[in-house]
């Protein structure tokens, strides 16, 4: 019967293809997958669903995959989630992986949410920790705004499925001596059929990468005092090679777009550095950024909760500090 336990299945990671290229989350997943596959003593495979024979799979071997399942079909070009889930469901039925992990991106979440319902499997969202316990997958995820960490297991159904938060683990360093096997999978026409029709894509004009992908996030809150002061954040983000985020209040006031909102009703970000400018640090905001490696907070109120999660805090006015910081950094740039 579909979805039942098999003794020795592979560990699978779902590679993510954007505009014909492998996105870096595909390599992060392999770093997670490698630990799990080694813990179980089974091969690690990456599944690539693509509109054409590209991208080449070599980089996936270099980053830890033993095998790559390459499913190329024009119907998969735009990554419509129901078609991707249909193909994955057939592949899972045929090859019986014991674990399937994907990245918690919009595509990863959508595809996995359709797939698990199709197969009657378990799915654990947005994990920040994965390990093997008693031969099975132990999934750790935050809930209730990061105030609770839950350990979740899927005792009976296979594959054990989860999405992991982007950037919760760095990719393995590339090893060009690693080689692997490419398995070409020919999907059924009926599995490729999507109920949706792709009409187009409009890229968003903004400074830097989407905040979920950025190494540095410079965020502004009510303390920025107005939309025009967000130009300071744009400038600082440009100098640091980062992207601009915002608190819920700033978004609700129309100072920043929804796509930049960090927090419980916005995005969860995990950059190397998070700079909170004029953000007091409501529980909902902290939920979206406390996973950052380093946190700098600038706020006029010395009692603001944001200082409780900051590695470095400046009690002061962002509107006085940021112009000077930017000026100093520009001096450094021109030197």
């Amino acid at each position, binding site marked *: 019967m579909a979805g039942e336990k098999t003794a020795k299945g592979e560990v699978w990671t779902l590679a993510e293809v954007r505009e014909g290229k492998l996105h870096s989350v595909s390599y992060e997943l392999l770093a997670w997958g490698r630990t799990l596959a080694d813990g179980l003593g089974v091969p690690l495979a990456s599944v690539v669903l693509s509109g054409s024979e590209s991208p080449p799979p070599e980089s996936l071997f270099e980053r830890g995959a033993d095998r790559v399942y390459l499913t190329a079909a024009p119907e998969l070009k735009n990554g419509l989630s129901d078609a991707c889930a249909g193909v994955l469901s057939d592949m899972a039925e045929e090859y019986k992986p014991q674990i399937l992990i994907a990245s918690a991106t*919009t595509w990863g979440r959508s595809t996995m949410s359709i797939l698990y319902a199709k197969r009657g499997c378990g799915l654990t969202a947005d994990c920040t920790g994965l390990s093997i316990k008693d031969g099975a997958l132990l999934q750790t995820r935050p809930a209730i*705004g990061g105030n609770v*960490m*839950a350990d979740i297991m899927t005792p009976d159904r296979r594959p054990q499925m989860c999405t992991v938060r982007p950037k919760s683990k760095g990719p393995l360093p590339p090893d060009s001596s690693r080689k692997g096997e490419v398995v070409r999978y020919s999907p059924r026409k009926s599995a490729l059929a999507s109920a949706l029709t792709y009409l187009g894509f409009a890229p968003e004009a903004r400074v830097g990468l989407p905040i979920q992908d950025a190494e540095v996030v410079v965020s502004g809150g009510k303390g920025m005092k107005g939309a025009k002061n967000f130009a300071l954040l744009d400038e600082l983000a440009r100098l640091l090679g980062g992207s601009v985020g915002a608190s819920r209040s700033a978004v609700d006031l129309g100072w920043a777009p*929804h796509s930049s909102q960090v927090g419980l009703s916005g995005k969860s970000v995990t950059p190397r550095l998070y700079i909170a400018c004029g953000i007091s640090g409501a529980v909902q905001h902290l939920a979206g950024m406390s996973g950052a490696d380093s946190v700098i907070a600038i706020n006029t109120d010395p009692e603001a909760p944001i200082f409780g999660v900051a590695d*470095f805090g400046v009690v*002061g006015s962002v509107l006085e500090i940021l112009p000077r910081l930017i000026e100093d950094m520009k001096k450094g740039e021109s030197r």
Partner: protein
Amino acid sequence: MGKVERIAVLIKQVPATENVRIDPETGVMIREGLAVEVNPLDLHAIEEAVRFKEKFPDARVTAVTMGPPAAAKAVRYAVAMGCDEGVVVTDRAFAGSDTLATSRVLAEALRKLGSEGGKGFDLILAGERATDGETGQVGPSVGTLLGVPVLTYVSKLEVRDGGFEAERAVEGGHERVSAPMPALAVVIKEINVPRLCTLSGKLRGRKAEVRTLSFADLGLPRESVGLAGSPTKVVKVGYPQVTRKGRKVSAFEDFGGALGALEKFLRAGDFVPAGRSQGVNG
């Protein structure tokens, strides 16, 4: 064909997160008096449903929630915002349901409610995710179990050529897709600004007769719901400390010193790209 006549909105009652404080000793969220509210992201789904009703005055909007009997309060709020009726799917048998078991219950409830009207739902709306569980999985899996097209991360939704045309907010921009009717759309915050309830709306909500559906009403196999029907099991719950012991300087007391220390922190963490590492105090 192409007219939206019946709409269902899936909502969830969650602990109110406004004014929530964390116990500094234990790191546990203090839920003052366990106040509950409609999941804030579901308000956007309710709002979208009510806007469709304004466009298609014959449309009938049903708000559906699964939860304890007290979750009737959530559907009353949906009625207060403009939904026509509310249904609470509640039974001890559903306790401990994970997202798949919950989806089975909600899908079956929608199937039943849909068949009673002669014609099923043309549109099912759901919020992006709940602020307590934060999985975002129930909406898409309800649609999948019902066999209808699933649109996720919807930031704009319109009826066009007898189906739906949607804008989806994905990394780096907006994607446009279309889907035939019926469909399930998971909407995000960007799609609209939820209205405030009017006084007459509140009265309507309070007086509304909230229908209850139980396990027996749905006829699902016992082993498909609740703990038994949940493939995932929570084996442990911990309360992490998110507090960091950081350094704090005051720009009010010593502006130059604070700025210098900030620049030093940035340099020490290797956050400043090469060639930009010279600050005033560097």
